[in-house]
């Protein structure tokens, strides 16, 4: 097994016995030290966008506001991923601790866990943990309360501004950015929205120190990451893998010997065909040779029995349903892509119509209001260009 495929067990590694030791230790340090550690660690957001976590906290700390908020994004809407659920189920204290530390750093007294509606079954256990946390916080003289907010079930509500809208009782539609949540988030106050895994990873930084954390991964991508492996694989599941592994290594480990493509990052991610496995590494975009791909953690393998047309069609159905529908490129674009590939497949439109649709995804990428509409182009163009025959015949 190549080095980076070690099952690290870092994120999901047990914490329950430590009784909030890391929290206690970290609370004694200065805000600037904490932020510096985070920045030095190179930790980037695990929710998909990959924004440097230390910088996000710094921005929220510097923003003026009477009240501030920490929101843990546990909406986990990407089909086929359930790593955030695992984290909250197995190591909730890591997340609660990191939220509290974030609260101290930015000056927030209130934190929310925006929990995906389908994860309601986690609530009793999680609430018990929160109650315990509140007792511990009291002992530490820490004024920070955490509350669970149950999400409404729309995929787009995972987008941080739509999430905030939904928490404010409004329709879950993404807002215009700027202002970013760090400036004007929940109730228009400075707010840090972090993914569950980001928070758990941040706690690992505080535990092992930025130097140790930084040793993992490559170039711009540090630490380890939980991957949800699914599709045509003999061993589906959640794996804690180091950043920087190549897809060739990955497929060797998880493939069934007949892998023709891997979808990295779910519906909004990229599809990588076999011929590009060797040159593709998993990590955030950086100056690597070949492509490097960010991912919310979903890795789906496809073998030669799969129709890539059907794969794409499923994604487009998903987007056409899950777009909030407010903006022109995403609402109508998704529908056009969906009926467009169908029209080409049936011979109603000539194969060249796919070029028109590829141009459309370029427009969507630069004009859509939020990440959902902007990222439809990823799977569309990577599947259409790499599997053009499957689209036409």
């Amino acid at each position, binding site marked *: 097994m190549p080095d980076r495929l070690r099952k690290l067990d870092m994120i999901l590694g047990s914490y329950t016995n430590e009784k909030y030791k890391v929290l206690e230790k970290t609370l004694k340090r200065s805000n600037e030290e904490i932020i510096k550690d985070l920045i030095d660690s190179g930790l980037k957001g695990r929710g998909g966008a990959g924004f440097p976590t230390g910088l996000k906290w710094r921005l929220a700390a510097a923003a003026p506001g009477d009240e501030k908020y920490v929101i843990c994004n546990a909406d986990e809407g990407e089909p086929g991923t359930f790593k955030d659920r695992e984290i909250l189920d197995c190591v909730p204290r890591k997340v609660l601790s990191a939220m509290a530390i974030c609260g101290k750093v930015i000056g927030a007294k209130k934190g929310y866990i925006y929990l995906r509606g389908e994860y309601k079954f986690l609530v009793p256990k999680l609430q018990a943990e929160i109650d315990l946390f509140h007792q511990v916080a009291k002992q530490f003289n820490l004024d920070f309360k955490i509350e669970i907010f149950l999400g409404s079930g729309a995929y787009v509500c995972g987008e941080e501004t739509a999430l905030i809208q939904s928490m404010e009782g409004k329709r879950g539609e993404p807002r215009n950015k700027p202002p970013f949540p760090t400036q004007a988030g929940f109730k228009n106050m400075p707010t840090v929205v972090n993914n569950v895994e980001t928070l758990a990873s941040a706690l690992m930084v505080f535990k092992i120190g930025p130097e140790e954390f930084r040793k993992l991964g490559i170039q711009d991508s540090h630490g380890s990451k939980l991957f949800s492996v699914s599709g045509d694989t003999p061993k589906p599941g959640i794996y804690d893998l180091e950043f920087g592994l190549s897809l060739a290594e990955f497929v060797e480990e998880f493939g069934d010997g007949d892998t023709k493509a891997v979808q990295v990052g779910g519906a909004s991610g990229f599809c990588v065909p076999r011929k590009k496995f060797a040159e593709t590494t998993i990590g955030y975009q950086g100056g690597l040779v070949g492509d490097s791909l960010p991912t919310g953690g979903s890795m789906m393998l496809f073998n030669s029995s799969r129709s890539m047309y059907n794969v794409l069609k499923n994604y487009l159905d998903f987007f*056409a349903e899950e777009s909030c*529908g*407010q903006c*022109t*490129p995403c609402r109508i674009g998704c*529908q056009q892509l969906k009926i467009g590939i169908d029209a080409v497949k049936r011979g109603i439109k000539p194969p060249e119509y796919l070029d*028109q649709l590829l141009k459309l995804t370029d427009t969507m990428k630069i*004009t859509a*209001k939020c990440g959902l509409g902007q990222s439809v182009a990823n799977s569309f163009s990577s599947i259409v260009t790499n599997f053009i025959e499957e689209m036409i015949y």
Partner: protein
Amino acid sequence: MEKFLNVNIDGIDVIVEEGTSILDAAKKVNIYIPTLCYHEDLCIAGNCRICVVEVIGQRTLAAACATPVSNGMVIKTNSPKVRNARKDLVALLVSEHNTQCTTCYRSTNCELQSLANEFNIDNNRYITLPHADTQIDRSSWSIEKDDSKCVRCQRCVRTCAELQHVNAITVAHRGEHMKISTFMELPLAEVVCVNCGQCVIHCPTAALTERRYFDYIWEAIGDEKKHVIINTAPSVRVAIGETLGYPPGTRVTGKMVTALKKMGFDSVLDTNFTADLTIIEEGTELLHRLRKALLEKEKVALPMITSCSPGWVKFIEHMYPEHLEHLSTCKSPQQMFGALAKTYYAEKMGIDPKDIVCVAAMPCAAKKYEANRPEMKDSGYQDVDAGLTTRELGLMIKQSGLNFAELEDGYFDTLMGKSTGAAVLFGATGGVMEAALRTVYEVVTGRELPFENLNFTPARGLGKIKEATIPLEECKEEWAFLNGIELKVAIAHGLTNARIIMDQVKSGTSPYHFIEIMACPGGCIGGGGQPIPTNDEIRKRRIAAIYAEDEGMPIRKSHENPEIKLLYEEFIPDGPLSKKSHKLLHTHYTKRNRY
């Protein structure tokens, strides 16, 4: 402490205040970025994406309406990348749209059509999406909703929420099913919609329009047996020119009257006549309530609030049903007109009221509903047969093939055609208050309202809520109980402002005696039936035209209108608030649900 920022737009350096959007910064250097979901009356939505521009150094394009400039920004508003993207977006909107422009009410005044023209859109770029839901909602007397013409800009939703605080229409569903809908997706007639039509004048397309009745009116005009009367509201004369190519604020009263006569109306009369009448009745009612409250120490609802705006009336019926006694019982001028047309006018002219068709040309969508209220049948017939908007009337003038610009000025016919400058004020926010005070003050003190040239300036302008205090001194003997009283009045326009006033009434903290409320921002000149576009710039010009009309009138106080005096002498001898007056000129209200 303003902060200023330097930006460069298409090669031009410009300095703007912090917080300025790219769209506004570009306007400063005369660069006009196309928009669709943007409307100057409303908060920013940033959802159509038509206004995208290139900001050098950014991966994605920025929505100019929604993006504040930052220092050193370099912006390109017309690069190939921007043009292609916009063109693609318009093509997408067209692919989603029921593009039957040839038969569309908004054709030639439609923002989507203009964009499609400007970008020379090829209708075949994309597959036309099926219009699953093309059922047109015609349940309401006032508003027609055709989702197949909707671009989902949410201007209507923002209008109904921000300007009117009604929230009758909302966004429903997601993705491809996303649409503009109502509570529980009920028909418009069954929800809290107050028919103000503000959503209509803020809609860029024909998705929301007024219910149109002009074909019925042409039929009536063509029917020899029918005597068709039209009366035109004060604010129509200062706005209808816009539908016929004149700049906003042009007064075309005389030409309009001539046109209506040439079109075949049997009598062209003036709603201003009953506006004057409203002042007499409502002024008397106010003094009556003040007498009860101050002299006779009886319990009586104060403040008294005006009732001539049917959008406002339906709003209070839905939202504050327990406070209806504050409304003046006076009918609106339109309804007073209808009731008199089929009684007084019929009698004097010797026409059988069943043959009279009473048409009201109004700046308003709610008046269509009002005309059809079941209680509005005091003449024994439906008092007002049909309400037209300014837009419909403009279209009828076009349909009749007249060369409007060349028409001579005409004059309203008599019997219910004479009016005063006070009446014309009804068209602007604050106007009813001003007209009422010109009369009430004089009745009480025997002196003219002490403002230069009778212009009661505190009531004027587009301020959200205007207030004034008028000290009453040296009153006539009959009104001696008012000596030393400071009459407190307030004026609100737009239902969001009305709500502020009503919350005070509700909590018992309202300091006023008399309040004027108009449903539409700016008053009737900004009504839901007025020419599109309507914005503050245009509102101001129409308001200026209203005041010019007033100053141009020989008589400027309602109680001096000779036809009004004649009406009381001949027809309502027992005077204002008498039994007959109550039967024909007053009404009652209905408690409604909030949902």
